[in-house]
């Protein structure tokens, strides 16, 4: 009888080690997270339950160290996109908010972390903290009160809406600005990667800057967490930078290269979003399969009714199609030697928006249809679907939301010139 492990996953690209690592995460999730999953939604402010669980995954299971160089205490795993997809899928199956918090710990550091654009100096400074015995978490501070999608829409907006500034002052950068919504803000982050401009209003790519700011730097303050419809394990607050002074070397690369390699992080965010949606859909599949097998209507299991089989078939197709697409793009990102373009290529950012959009629509549809066939059990917390239904909406709203994903996907495939 098929299980979630029978959905598309190319074994020639995903080694046994990586697959088994995923199974380790699954076992951990079943033993440690599932017993408290219902309580996590109420833990959105203080993370009393979530905090220790983050340490178990990121420190005790070694995920925070996965891509850091060996010299900094890391595991230096190859094929980062493939590894991320496996990790994110397994964790999202348990709780997509928790998966988000885990993977975003290093997301902002990607432009400095991965080869061939690794900043070894910054890896040696911050790597031992990420790879140590205490939990150390990163936050990619990108979105601002007036815009999030506009910051990411570099092809058209060219950074002109970025209000957070990095001003050179001798051997330091002075950061001023206000960010809102980033994952792992509030009391979670130890280190921010801050998206800045060195000249407000500029459309020059050289003025786009990524600067590391330790969370305990004077002038950094955060607000209270926002209570969201879901994803409670992902803490989101305001962050204010008031004349924050950091060493010059904390800029990840420099003019031009910051933006160039940041695009890899954005593309990884798109592909990773698909992995997250797949993880959620796989748990929805498990729940609805059990439900429609055990629920007997008119003398036969619910799944044996044709109208129900239509829903079940659609959910399976949504998982298969999204998985196939995601694995192909993960492979393209990990193997530029085969596919011919670098993982920071702007074309990849654009076309991976299509994958992310498809995944958003797929998981929204899967959750909604599953709930339709569970009736009142679908909207009751104990039965597992309504949490995914609330959480998945957040996946659809990030990475520029459906609007930007639609535009950039069309821009790539149809050579749009004004949108």
């Amino acid at each position, binding site marked *: 009888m098929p299980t979630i492990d029978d959905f598309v996953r190319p074994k020639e690209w995903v080694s046994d080690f*990586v697959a088994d690592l995923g199974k380790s995460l699954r076992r951990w999730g079943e033993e440690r997270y599932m017993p408290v999953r219902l309580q996590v939604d109420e833990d959105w402010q203080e993370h009393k339950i979530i905090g220790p669980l983050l340490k178990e995954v990121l420190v005790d299971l070694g995920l925070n160290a996965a891509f850091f160089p060996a010299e900094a205490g890391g595991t230096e795993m190859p094929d980062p996109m493939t590894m991320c997809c496996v990790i994110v899928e397994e964790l999202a199956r348990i709780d997509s908010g928790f998966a988000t918090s885990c993977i975003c710990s290093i997301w902002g550091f990607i432009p400095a972390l991965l080869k061939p654009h690794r900043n070894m100096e910054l890896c040696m400074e911050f790597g031992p903290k990420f790879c140590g015995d205490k939990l150390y978490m990163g936050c990619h501070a990108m979105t601002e009160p007036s815009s999030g999608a506009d910051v990411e829409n570099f092809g058209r907006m060219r950074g002109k809406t970025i209000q957070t500034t990095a001003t050179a002052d001798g051997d330091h950068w002075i950061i001023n600005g206000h960010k809102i919504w980033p994952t792992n803000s509030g009391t979670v982050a130890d280190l921010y990667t801050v998206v800045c401009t060195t000249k407000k209003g500029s459309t020059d790519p050289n003025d786009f800057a990524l600067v590391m700011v330790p969370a305990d730097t004077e002038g950094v303050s955060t607000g209270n967490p926002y209570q969201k419809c879901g994803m409670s394990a992902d803490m989101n607050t305001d962050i204010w930078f008031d004349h924050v002074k950091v060493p010059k070397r904390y800029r990840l690369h420099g003019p031009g290269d910051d933006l160039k390699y940041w695009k890899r992080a954005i593309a990884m965010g798109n592909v990773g979003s698909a992995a997250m949606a797949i993880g959620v859909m796989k748990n929805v599949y498990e729940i609805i399969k059990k439900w429609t097998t055990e629920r007997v209507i008119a003398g036969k299991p619910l799944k044996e009714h044709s109208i129900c089989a239509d829903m079940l078939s659609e959910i399976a197709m949504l998982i298969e199609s999204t998985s196939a697409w995601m694995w192909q793009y993960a492979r393209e990102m990990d193997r530029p030697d085969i596919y011919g373009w670098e993982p920071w290529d702007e074309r990849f950012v654009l076309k991976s928006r299509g994958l992310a959009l498809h995944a958003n629509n797929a998981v929204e549809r899967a959750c909604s249809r599953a709930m339709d066939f569970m009736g009142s059990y679908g909207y009751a917390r104990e039965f597992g679907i309504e949490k995914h239904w609330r959480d998945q909406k957040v996946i659809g709203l990030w990475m520029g939301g459906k609007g930007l994903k639609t535009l950039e996907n069309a821009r790539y495939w149809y050579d749009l010139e004004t949108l």
Partner: protein
Amino acid sequence: MAVLYPSQEWCDAWKDAMNNSEAVRENGKNWGADFNGNFVFEIAPGGGLDKTTYLYLEAKAGLCSVARVVDSPIGLDPGFHVTGDYPAFKNVVRGDKDFIEGVVRGLFKVKGDMSKIMRNAKFVRAVANSFTLFEATYLGE
């Protein structure tokens, strides 16, 4: 004097190299503390090796107590069983290939708790790097 890989003499040299390596000792403090940190390496024939060869390693708290050639893994109780062909192992022993990369890329199959390898990657790498601390010769060359 160079020792042939694989052989009991090579295992003896490897054990000495590990136990004299500060990197192994320092990074292996927690290895095997609450789990079985012993290895069987199953080397498949090819590249000059004409039959499957098994090496057994007992390691705990940064020290190697046993490194030997065994006829088979029957009766042993390793926490990790690593399988690969001779050319792949040779590349790692020579220092030409990173062991963890080889595992992740599927050149080696590993049975065991992957999260322990992830968490103790520095120790695993230090053990792999200890191969290069003594001279070896290889079959088929």
